[in-house]
């Protein structure tokens, strides 16, 4: 994830209302992945979810509102993404005539949507920890953990020996640990990550 430029809340809200392109670029960096993840969890189609997230941000651009807080803006974006996702599902349902298969538990009610919003934002925070690692370590974590590639394939792709890979993986974990410890975090996260 690229470095996200910082904005004062008020400055950002004004820039967004004024359709400042740089502010939208920033907004994209902050919300895009979260919105895709959120929509994807509802509709199970990454392609469409990406379109929905993009469309939601474009709609914000077209809206004449100046939001009074980032919280309201966030709520608005999630609302757009939720509606588009539900609409898409409705569309699918009509097409596939699958209405009979829907059960009580499968409803997206306010509670499940709210919890999904929390999950989407949580994922962003966790992924950031990995994204902040130095490149050579991050690469290892991405291949082994995020892409679930077998160690032998990772070694082949990076053109290093298995022994070399093991060492680099150990250093990556150490690095991650240092980063987390600086934040006053215990290493339980690492055991979740790697073992």
């Amino acid at each position, binding site marked *: 994830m690229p470095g996200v430029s910082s904005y004062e809340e008020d400055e950002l809200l004004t820039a967004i209302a004024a*359709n400042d*392109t740089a502010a*939208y*670029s920033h907004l*994209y960096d902050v919300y*895009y*992945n979260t919105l895709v*993840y959120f929509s*994807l*969890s*509802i*509709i*199970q189609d990454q*392609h469409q979810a990406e*379109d929905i997230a993009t*469309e939601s941000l*474009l*709609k914000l651009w*077209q809206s*004449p*509102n100046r939001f009074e*807080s980032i*919280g309201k803006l966030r*709520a608005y974006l999630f609302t757009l993404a939720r509606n588009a996702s*539900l*609409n*898409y*599902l*409705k*569309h699918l349902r009509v*097409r596939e005539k699958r209405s009979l298969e*829907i059960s009580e*538990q499968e*409803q*997206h*009610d306010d*509670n*499940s949507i*709210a*919890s*999904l*919003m*929390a*999950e989407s934002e*949580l994922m962003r925070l*966790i*992924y950031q920890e990995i994204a902040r690692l130095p490149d050579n370590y991050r690469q290892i974590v991405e291949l082994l953990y*995020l*892409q*679930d*590639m*077998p160690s032998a394939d990772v070694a082949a792709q990076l053109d290093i020996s298995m022994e070399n890979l093991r060492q680099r993986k150990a250093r990556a974990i150490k690095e991650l640990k240092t980063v*987390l410890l600086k*934040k006053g*975090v*215990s*290493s339980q*996260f690492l*055991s*979740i990550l790697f073992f």
Partner: protein
Amino acid sequence: MPTDDFTSMDHAFDERIVRLLHQQLTGEVLTAGEQQELDTWKNRSLSNTALSEKINDEAAVQQMLQVWHQIERNREQNKIRFLSMLQDLQHSSISKRPLLRFLSHRVFRYAAAVALLIGVATFLWVNQRKPAGPGNNMAAAGKNMPIAPGRDGAILTLADGSTMVLDSAGNGVLANQNGTSVVLQNGQLAYNTGDGAAGAPVYNTVSTPKGRQFKLILPDGTKVWLNAASIIRYPTSFEGKERNITLQGEAYFEVSQDAKTPFKVTTDEATTIEVLGTSFNINAYTNENIIRTTLLDGAVRINAYHQTATLKPGQQAAVKPSKGQMVVLNAVNTDQVMAWKNGLFNFDDASLDEVMRQLERWYDIEVVYEKGIPTAHFGGEINKQNTLQDVLHILEGSKVDFQLEGRKLIVKP
């Protein structure tokens, strides 16, 4: 039943909960107060309880991060697209448009009426991840999954900013735009002005993502075949002395005759193609460094970077925005230019990266070169209805090796 919007939600509370969950996941010790706050949240709904349990399950966390990672991998490219769409909107509207119809209650009635398909409880990956072990992981499973070819489909953005997914299944009137009805017939979009005079024109946009193509008929009867990863913007009724539209990506046009009102296509700030009843193809992808306009029939005039050229059938104007240059090529291979519309890839004398960019757009994949771009040239035609694996199999005859991991294609020398 879903509420209208979330603007009444307590953002500060949500933010705090997310932070506490993050702390819990990273093993930080919570204060008694924090723990209590988290417990209150957890007991508020079954979904919250489920989420709280999920983040303590390492396999589930890994899956969630893998989903995120897939999103991240397309992010840069999608951002470029997003910014170019913004630019489009910027050029098209001086004043902001009214608030979207999207927030009207109609939509919410839908949402409420729809008992939805897939629950959050079924979560992100249907397949339960098996314990890690050689040959027993998701990447390996992905390798064997055939990647299906693209198909018909697009997204229509109406004048008020609301969007609709278009595909081959639906039929009927989709919307009314100032007296003009927008109709979907057998998977193609058309406009009916009806008997009454149309109101002031408003703009609609049709965009295809990677892996989709689409056909539409503009309000003047002009037929447009839109290739994958392309965007076309046009008024719902053509007024005035010119018919102006904008295009990004690739499209083939059969312009309906109207000598009095020239049809003009703008592809970037400096390039306009002016036509009078004719058929031609424009390839103006931002990731191809040349904008190619190929004339099949009739006559077109290209204005690009202060230069002008008039094409005869069979000629192609190649505009290089980076250099602000235009060259006219004679006797181009129009079969090759039109192959995409006719359901084919034509790789005659194409370089490897040209071929790969076409595959990226049609199969919605990402191509990575392990060691630079090998110099390989290809020939022949391949049916676009093949799966990606079949196409790669055919291409492998040309001294290149491919390795597919999910939707990432690695090219090896």
